């Protein structure tokens, strides 16, 4: 593949990571804890849309190689993730009398419950959406870019959602309230913002985006009960890279981590080509910069960022 090809793949994967990391970051800044159930919220979205898609099937015409029914399923996935998250907030997190570390630990329990229910219902095997696998877009192949219309749909939908979120945050009352609350929760209450409601909306939006990310992850790869949990650390890496609690930082971090992840094979050819000295370093780098370690590289970047800039590359966490 060419550099362009890797970049294109990176763009698709980044779209998914960005959707996941925005939600995680929103919840981090407004509910004030690291939500370890976020990855499994993505899984919920993916499986709900799988079931919905099975029911509505190839409804109507098609856009970008996807039948309208798929978009119905996407909406269902988003809705399910949001509803489950709000229910969890109301039933579990809100009544708890623990600090943010206690909430973090609780969210691990929640993650397991989500995943277990899905696994009991669907088994632990991989599944796919009942869609014809597409061939790469012909006109791009000469450039070494092998992406399908489905990939394009992922990127396009992610762009729509991200722009939508941007509009919501910047130009609506709810968005301003959310930013105000992330900025200064005490002053938000003093100003008359009913913070509990805003928090619920944060869950709706954060989990909804996660649900969408889950659906696209299922479309990009395949579905399994572990799909979200497996991605969780990559998403954390993105959020930390962008600066915890910063939505726009999470977008940037998600983009970078997604790119790095997909560009790993390219980096490895670069490393092989470079005259690195001493020899053992070259060997070590060649061994480590391989597709198998794509995630490990993301985690190492995350730890390095935490060490050097605990506030992330976007600096102080301002939404």
């Amino acid at each position, binding site marked *: 593949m060419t550099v362009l090809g890797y970049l294109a793949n990176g763009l698709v994967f980044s779209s998914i990571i960005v959707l996941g990391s925005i939600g995680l970051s929103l919840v981090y800044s407004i509910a004030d804890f690291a939500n370890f159930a976020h990855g499994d919220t993505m899984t919920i979205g993916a499986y709900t849309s799988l079931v919905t898609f099975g029911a509505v099937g190839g409804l109507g015409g098609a856009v970008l190689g996807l039948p309208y029914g798929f978009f119905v399923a996407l909406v269902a996935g988003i809705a399910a993730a949001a509803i489950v998250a709000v229910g969890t907030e109301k039933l579990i997190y809100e009544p708890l009398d623990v600090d943010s570390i206690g909430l973090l630990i609780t969210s691990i329990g929640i993650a397991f419950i989500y995943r277990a229910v899905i696994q009991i219902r669907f088994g632990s095997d991989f599944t796919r959406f009942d869609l014809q696998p597409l061939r790469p877009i012909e006109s791009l192949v000469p450039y070494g870019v092998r992406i399908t219309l489905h990939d394009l749909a992922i990127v396009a939908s992610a762009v729509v959602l991200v722009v939508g979120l941007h509009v919501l945050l910047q130009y609506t*009352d709810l968005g*301003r*309230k959310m*930013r*105000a609350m*992330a*900025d*200064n929760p*005490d*002053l*938000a*209450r*003093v*100003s*008359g*913002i*009913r*913070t509990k409601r805003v928090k619920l909306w944060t869950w709706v939006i954060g989990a909804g985006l996660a649900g969408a990310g889950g659906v696209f992850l299922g479309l990009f790869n395949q579905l399994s009960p572990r799909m979200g949990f497996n991605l969780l650390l990559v998403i954390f890496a993105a959020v930390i890279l962008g600066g915890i609690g910063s939505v726009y930082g999470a977008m940037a971090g998600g983009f970078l981590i997604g790119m790095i992840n997909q560009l790993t094979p390219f980096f490895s050819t670069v490393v092989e080509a470079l005259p690195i000295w001493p020899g053992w370093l070259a060997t070590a780098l060649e061994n480590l910069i391989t597709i198998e370690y794509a995630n490990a590289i993301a985690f190492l970047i995350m730890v390095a960022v935490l060490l050097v800039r605990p506030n992330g590359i976007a600096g102080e966490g*301002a*939404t």
Partner: protein
Amino acid sequence: MSDDTTGPADGVHDGTGPVLSLSNVDGGYGEVQVLDDLSVRLDPGEIVCLVGPNGAGKSTVLKTAFGMLTPWTGTVEYHGRDIGGMPPEEIVREGIGYVPQTDNVFGSLTIDENLRMGGVARDGGLDGVIETLYDRFPIIDEKRGSKAKTLSGGQRQVLAFARALVMEPDVLLIDEPSAGLAPNTADDVFDDVREVNDMETAILMVEQNVTKGLGISDRGYVLDQGTVRFEGTPEELLNDEEVSQLYLGG
């Protein structure tokens, strides 16, 4: 009182009673008692200044009046109605505004957005009120689209007032408006406090700078150890030997 669109007028014409009163309040943080049988009142249209040494419980009075702390015993009455323990986001809707001492603007929001946040509880007329406030405080009008964190200390304080005034409250609670400001800026801020008062808003203010705080006030209370030691006109309090002794020991 929830018909906040009618603004401050109904407080003034409501009769002769105080607009806000705390009566025999005990209270504090967690288990730590700060207020001890404290009573203060604020009449319509006046500026009242709370002074006293550090740890006397001045800020705690405001926080208790504004529902950020629940009184242990005693009552907090607004136009004769008990509002003790009502959460702050609801008290705002009753017609009381609060300007905290620090962190009193949303730094990552623009000036305009800060003012909009001040009006989230309004039913309507938001744009009109905001324009009026820009007219009144030109210093922030110039920077509508800038993030609040780019403002200077004095400008921030003005924005904090304006944010609280969007609701056109009957009562404004202000915690140490001059804190951290250079003397000249502080003077400007005190002028602004007076101006706010001219808009028929009664003000209960905590101030470290006794001379200046009392200087713009109609009445003052000297607090010590969570209770009122003296009450009187600014002149009475400023000339009282015991007041300065309270500050510097004696």
